Each structure stands twice: as structure tokens, then as C-alpha cells.
């Protein structure tokens, strides 16, 4: 447990440090501090994972030694340990990119990314609905500030994002208040056995679900995402799409799989799963039509979250452990692939001097490494073997196919695969155009391009550790 707390505290403290005396330091040193703290946090997360795996069950801690019921309770399960590891890894990969690419980044990025890391770590470890609210709020505010980093043109989407984020938090808080009024309890583990399917609980759950779906841009509440993610600086887009939207999703999962009474969860399951299927297709179609590169990538986030939502919905409906595994495998595989996709998109944009998809003509010749990264990461989104996306899809498909009455869901997965292939290969096919090459404005930045490829290679490497991941997630999600 101590390691997990360290993994949470280190980025938070270095964030504070950078905030207080960041101006006095040179940008290079700021970046170094941030990356070093991420690295330490990553190592701590690894030890925390070992610890929880050795214990075989989730570990609980009452902060400050207060007794249960009064204390702020933290919980380290194998899932939250894995997510801690994932968060630190993503921050490390994206931090390295932000620090080493030629264009550099606004110095405020480092403090904010440390805060983001800390608040996400706190989110994975919280086991209390109000605590979760606080982490959610922190996460939202940091994310908005990060969107605004790219200057004046991003203020509008950032402001929209802020308003929506606040509204969503409000919805969530209302739900929390209702539950507190009804049960006098907000600790997840204490609340879980007591909830009943009465009107107050239903209303509370509905409000909280709306808020959370809005925050993680789940269909049909996704419209704010593409402009916000597309207008942020490249490294920030990668963090937002790869990580931030997963936070509210986690709370949604806690809420429905633990807090809500099972009967209610079974009712809402199919609704969520259908929303997921629609997200998969509608998001994919929007990505296919999108004229600009980053918007395409942002819409693909909307589509891919559909997979996760589908897995969550079916998990609630059938209570199958495979769905739980599939859900988190999707989250991790998507995070890594999306990071690569955004970094590659950003690099290609700056090298080729265009935001438009049509500007990528001939990209396999002009920016080969970045284009390769885009294609490789895209392969994982499509779910081509042996990538992480394939792993997740395989686990999801197995229970869907074993019963003939579940086959329509498998059809949804098939459709999702085809649509994802369509929008990824729309770009890839263009990049092979040799007749109308769009010449690059500046020499491609080699380091930046290779760093964009790194997460994509990792997501394809996930397949090799597939069995380990599956066992870990099967070992006990709660």
C-alpha cells in the first residue's frame, strides 16, 4: 500500500514544487524533474502491483488512522495497481515526447501534467464516492488548463470544456448528496450491501451516470470531445484521449458494478451496451468523414470508447468476468494506441504544415516514421492480431459467440472493426499517393517521430504479456 501511496504522492508533490518555484527554474530542468518523478512513480506502481499480487486480495487503508466510516479510505486492488502502472507509463512516454521533440512545449505543461498524474492516481485508489468527486474535479480542471496551453485559439473549446465539465461534476455531486441523504454513507464498500432499488437511489444513479458519461464523452454525450482534444497541444491531446476520459469511466464502473443494486445494474446494462455499439459506428463514421487529422483521431476516441462502454454494459447484464477483463484491456490498449496516434498526427501536422487529412498525400515518403507509427497504432484500434486491441477484442468476443442468442452483439463488434479499418486506412491509403505529394515544410524531427512510434510498439508488444494481463485482471477486479 505504501508504494501505491508513493506513486500517487510523488507526482503530486513535484507538481506543487514546480508550481511554486517553476518560474525560477529553466524549462529543461522543469521537464527533467517532471519526467524523473514520473519514472519513480512508475517504479512504485510496479512494486504496488507486486504487493497486491502477492497478497491475492485488495488492500485497504484508512488515511490518518481514523476508524472505518469516518476515515478517507483508499483501496489498492490488482486493477487499480495496474491502472497506476498504466498512468505512470503513459505519462512517461508522453513526457519524454514533450521534452525531447524539437518544437518543445509550454513550460506550464510540466506542473499540470504532474497534477494530472497525481489526480488520476488518487482516482484509481479512492474507495469513497465523495473522494472520487474531488479527484474528478481536480482532473477536470487540470485538463481544461492543459487544453488552454495551446494559446488563444484553444480558449473557446477550453471554455466549453470547462462549463461542461463543471455541469457534469454538479450532476455527479447531486447524486452523491442524494445517496448520502438516503444511506448516510459514501464509502463504496460500506454502501454496496445496503443499496436498494428505490426512487432516490435510481435518481441518484441516473444523475451520477449522466455526469460521468458527459465527462468521459460516452455517446450520446460526446460532442464536446473532438474540438477540445483536437485543439490542445499534441502531447496534451494524447494525455486527454489516452488517459483522462478513462477516469470517469472507472467511476462509472465502480458505481454500477459495486454500489448499485444488481437488479438495477442488469436493467441498465443493455442500454449502455447499445449506446456503446452506436458510439462505435457513429464515432467511426464521423472519423471517416472528418477533414482534419486531429479531429479524425479525436472521433476515433469516441468510437473506441464505444467498445469499453459495450464491455461495461454487457458486464452489468451478464456479470461475466471476461467482460471485466475485456473492458480494462480495451482501456489500456486504447490508451497506448491513441497516444501514438495523436503524437504521430501532431508530428505530421507540423512537418507537413497542414491540418487536413488530404495534406497527408505521400506521407510514407516524406514522414515515413510518423506515418508508420500512425498505421501501427491504427492496427491496434482495428484489432489486428497480435496487438493489444486484438487481445481485448478476442476476450470480448469469446462469451459473445458461445451462445447463439448473443450473436447480434458480435455483429456490433464486427461492424466496429470494419468502420475502424475504414477510417484508419483512409489515411494510410492517401499516404501512399506518389502522384500528388505534399512536400514537407520543414525537415522531419527524427526524435519526435520515433518517440511517437514507441507507444504503438508497446501496444503490439502487449500481446506477448497477454496471458499475464488476463490473469491479473481475472484475479479480482474489486
Amino acid at each position, binding site marked *: 500500500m505504501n508504494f501505491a501511496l508513493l506513486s500517487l504522492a510523488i507526482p503530486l508533490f513535484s507538481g506543487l514544487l514546480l508550481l511554486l518555484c517553476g518560474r525560477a527554474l529553466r524549462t529543461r530542468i522543469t521537464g527533467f524533474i517532471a519526467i524523473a518523478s514520473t519514472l519513480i512513480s512508475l517504479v512504485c506502481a510496479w512494486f504496488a502491483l507486486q504487493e497486491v499480487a502477492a497478497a491475492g486480495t485488495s488492500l485497504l487503508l484508512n488515511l490518518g488512522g481514523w476508524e472505518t466510516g469516518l476515515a478517507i479510505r483508499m483501496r489498492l486492488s490488482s486493477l487499480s495497481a495496474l491502472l497506476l502502472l498504466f498512468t505512470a507509463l503513459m505519462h512517461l512516454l508522453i513526457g519524454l515526447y514533450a521534452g525531447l521533440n524539437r518544437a518543445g512545449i509550454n513550460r506550464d505543461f510540466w506542473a499540470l501534467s504532474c497534477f494530472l498524474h497525481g489526480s488520476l492516481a488518487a482516482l484509481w485508489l479512492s474507495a469513497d464516492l465523495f473522494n472520487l468527486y474531488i479527484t474528478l474535479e481536480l482532473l477536470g480542471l487540470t485538463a481544461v488548463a492543459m487544453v488552454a496551453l495551446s494559446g488563444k485559439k484553444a480558449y473557446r473549446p477550453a471554455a466549453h470544456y470547462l462549463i461542461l465539465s463543471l455541469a457534469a461534476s454538479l450532476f455527479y455531486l447531486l447524486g452523491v448528496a442524494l445517496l448520502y441523504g438516503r444511506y448516510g454513507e459514501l464509502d463504496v464498500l460500506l454502501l454496496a450491501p445496503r443499496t436498494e432499488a428505490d426512487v432516490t437511489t435510481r435518481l441518484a444513479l441516473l444523475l451520477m451516470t449522466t455526469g460521468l458519461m458527459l465527462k468521459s464523452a460516452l455517446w450520446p454525450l460526446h460532442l464536446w470531445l473532438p474540438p477540445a482534444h483536437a485543439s490542445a497541444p499534441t502531447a496534451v491531446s494524447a494525455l486527454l484521449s489516452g488517459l483522462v476520459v478513462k477516469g470517469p469511466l472507472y467511476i462509472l464502473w465502480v458505481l454500477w458494478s459495486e454500489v448499485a443494486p444488481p437488479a438495477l445494474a442488469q436493467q441498465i446494462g443493455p442500454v449502455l451496451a447499445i449506446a456503446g455499439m452506436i458510439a462505435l459506428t457513429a464515432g467511426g463514421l464521423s472519423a471517416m468523414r472528418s477533414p482534419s487529422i486531429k479531429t479524425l483521431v479525436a472521433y476515433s476516441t469516441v468510437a473506441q470508447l464505444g467498445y469499453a462502454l459495450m464491455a461495461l454494459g454487457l458486464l452489468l447484464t451478464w456479470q461475466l468476468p471476461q467482460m471485466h477483463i475485456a473492458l480494462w484491456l480495451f482501456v489500456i490498449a486504447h490508451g497506448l494506441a491513441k497516444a501514438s496516434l495523436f503524437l504521430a498526427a501532431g508530428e505530421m501536422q507540423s512537418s507537413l504544415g497542414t491540418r487536413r487529412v488530404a495534406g497527408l498525400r*505521400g506521407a*510514407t*515518403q516524406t514522414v*515515413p516514421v510518423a506515418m508508420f507509427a500512425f498505421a501501427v497504432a491504427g*492496427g491496434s484500434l*482495428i*484489432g*489486428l*492480431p*497480435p496487438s493489444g486491441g486484438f*487481445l481485448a*477484442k*478476442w476476450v470480448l*468476443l*469469446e*462469451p459473445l*459467440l*458461445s451462445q*447463439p442468442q448473443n450473436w447480434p452483439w*458480435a455483429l456490433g463488434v*464486427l461492424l466496429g*472493426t*470494419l468502420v475502424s*479499418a475504414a477510417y484508419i*486506412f483512409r489515411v*494510410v*491509403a*492517401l499516404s*501512399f*499517393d*506518389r*502522384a500528388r505529394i505534399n512536400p514537407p515544410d520543414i525537415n522531419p524531427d527524427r526524435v519526435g517521430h520515433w518517440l511517437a512510434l514507441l507507444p504503438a510498439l508497446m501496444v503490439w508488444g502487449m*500481446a*506477448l504479456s*497477454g*496471458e499475464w494481463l*488476463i490473469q491479473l485482471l481475472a484475479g479480482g477486479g474489486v
Partner: protein
Amino acid sequence: MTLSWTTLLPVLIILSSLIPGLLIFATPEAAARRRITLNLTGVSLKLLLVGLMLAGVSQGLEFRFELTFLPGAQLVLQGDALALQFVALSSVLWLMTTIYAIAYLENSPLRSRFFGYFSLCVSTTVGLALAGNMITFLLFYELLTLATFPLVVHRGTPEALRAGRVYLAYTLGGGALLLMGIALLHSIAGTPDFVPGGYLTALADEHAFSLRIAFGLMILGLGVKAALVPLHGWLPQAMVAPAPVSALLHAVAVVKAGAFGIIRVVYDVYGIEATTLLSLTQPLMWLAAITIIFASIRALQQQDIKKRLAYSTVSQVSYITLGVSLVGPIAAVGAIVHLVHQGLMKVTLFFCAGNFAETLGIHKIQEMDGLGQRMPWSMAAFTVGALGMIGVPPIAGFISKWYLITGALEVNQQWVLLVLGGSALLNAAYFLPLIYRGWFRAPPAGGWHDNNFADQRLETHWMLLLPPLITALLSILVGVFAGTIFSPLGWSQFIVNREFGL
């Protein structure tokens, strides 16, 4: 897992083209010599390793490599007799195609990219051949799509891009269906290794419905690459690719991968017994028969040489499917041996068509008049290939047809004779005019379009001429020496004896 040479050999065979491929990507464009060295080293090494494995398998050794991947589904590479048939074919033809491609692409841009993907393509094909279970097969099947796409669009013209999009739409769609079928099968029976006789016989009664659906999905998925009608649309379009790529698509890798997959599914996954129990052979047989006739008619309508050859491939590859679906041992020999025979003959034809286009700028059939006088060697190789396709003895194609016909009679499917006979007539109708024009018409009075290599001793670049001559010779030799044990026919009999437990 103990690491011995029998474990590592399958991996080494894949790596022998994968590593040169990756190195080629990093080779500067101007370093042609280094690129050629890498290519040829890879090919020679691979041929050596394949020879070693062939010797091992005929001695009864087992080659198996495994790696954990999914729960209940490992990555398995296994060198069995059937796998080797395909591996040996693609390795030999890869050598020929590499030599050909070096000359064909001389002085053209982006050669490092081309040869890099070329090597990757062969690596995935060999991996697909050595795949020891359906998951591993799927993995390489999808990777093959990805490795061939850059080759199809290599020219980067609008037509090439259009063909590339069509290619992707078909193959990725097929891949998705194949995935569904394999996942469905996995949920019923898990994913054990391929075994002669299949592993589903015991389950055929209980899960008849699901097994039929899974079979249908997998055949649809494989049928895209095997170009079964109506899933063949990508193949004629893909003709815009450079000639070595066409050779690769038609003879070495892609189309063969589909046909090979069908053989695996019928013999080593479902097994003859379960396939018959579930009455799956009849629909497959009809599909193959329709493809053979329909594609032959379409070939007759084409005026472009390469397009005609493309439709001829669609038709000829379905011989394999037909032979498989007849479920008799003799027809099975015909199907498996045709995998090699069709490859040899078709690659010859494509090399020659490429030579005509490169040397004299000839693309259409009408332009072939008098070609035999200017390019006698290429035209002779072309003639051997074409006559072989028709089924003239002693060329390879005759042997396959002979076995298919006797096989059909053995299982009392007399109507197949009509299909094969009709197809032979149609083959003659669309190949003989080309041969006639080439040898017996006078050359055009106005001279040729282009006239490259006119002042040289040979009719064209020697590296363009040598590969078709060798493959033409091989197609005759495998026919003449069909009776010996080390011919493709002898090896096919060895495979079939195992499959049918004879």
C-alpha cells in the same frame, strides 16, 4: 521449453527473410549492392533451412515452436508435411521473383521500401504456412494483408490507390469474418493444434449449427484471398501493381494463402469425417465449380494480357478448392499438388507478361502479333505456361488435372468431369489465341511501341529472362518426374497418406 534445433528451425525460417527485410528498410536508396546482397543472402539462407526441414520431416522428425499468447490458444509454429509443401514453393518462387524484381525495378525510386515489404510479405507467407493452429494462422493471414498493401499501391498513382483501397476493403473484411469464425470455433472446441483428420468429429452432432456457421464464416474469410466468386473482385483490379507484385499475389503468397487455409480448415480442423457429417462439402464444391467456369468465361472477355491472366488465376486456384471438397484421397493429391503446379505455371506467365511490357511496351493481346520473332525465349516460356494451364502433358498442369479427374470418378461425382472438361476448353480458348498470335502472325509493320534492349545479345535483361525460363523448365520437370518421391506429386501423396490415414 527446451531450445533445440528442431524447436528453433521454424522461427529461423521466418527470421531468415524478416531480418533482411528490416535491414533493407534502413538501407539508403543508393546502396543497391547492399540491398541485393541482403536479399540474396536471405533467400539462400531460407532455401538452406527449408531443405534442412524437408530432410528432417521426411525422416519423421517433428519441428514445433510455441509461445504463450491467448488463454487456451498459443502461438504455434509447426513444420509438417503440408506446411512444407507451401513453404518450399514460396521460398523457391521468392528467389525467382527477387531476381526478377531487382532487374524490373532497376533505377526506379523507393526500392528500399519495396524490397523491405517484399521480404516481410514472404516472411508472413512462410509463417502462415508453418502456423500450427488457427490463431497463429489468423495472425499471419492479417499480417500478410498489411505487408502486401504497400506493394499493391507501390506505384502511387490514382489507379494504384484505387486498387489498393479495393484490396483492403476485401481483405480486411475477409479477415474480420475469419476472426469471427475462428473465435466461434474457439468457443466451441478451443484452439488445439492442426491434426490430420481434424479435431471436431466428436462435437459434430452436438454443435452442428454453430459449426456450420463457423465453417461458413471461415470459408468466406479465406475465400476472399483465394478469390472464390463472388469474392474475387480485388484480384483483377490489383493488376495495376508492378509485375513482380502480381507474381507474388498470384503464385507465391496471397491467393495461395487463401487456398492453403481452405485445405487446412477442411483437412486439419474439421477433418474429412466431420465435414461430410455436417454436409459442408457439397456447397463448397458448387462454389468452386461456379468459380472455375465463371472466371474462365470472364477471362475470355479480357483484352488486357494481365487481366486475362488474373481471371485465369481465379479459375485455376479454385481447382484446389474443388479437389479438397471432393474428399477423396486421389482428388486430395490433385488439390495439394496443384498448389505447387499452379504456382510454377502462373509465375512463369506473369514473368513473361512483365517482360513483354518492359521490353516492347505490350499490354494488349492484339499487340502480341509476331512476338515470337523478337522475344523467342520469353514467348517459349509463356507457351509452356499456357499449355500447362490447358493441361497438355507432360507439363505440370496435366498431372493435377489427371488426379482431379480420377479423384472425382473415385467418389462418383461424374459431373465434375464436365466442369473440368469445360474449363480445359475455355482455357484453350483464351490461351491459344495468344500463342497463335505470338508464333504465327507477322510482327507489326510499324515496329514495336518501345524497343528496349534491342542492341543486346539477349532479347531482354538477363535477370528478367532467367526466372521465367527456370520456372518454365521446372513446370516441365515436375511433370516429367512426377513419379519420383521428391517431386511435388510424391510429396503430396505423402501428405495425403497421413491425412486419410492410409
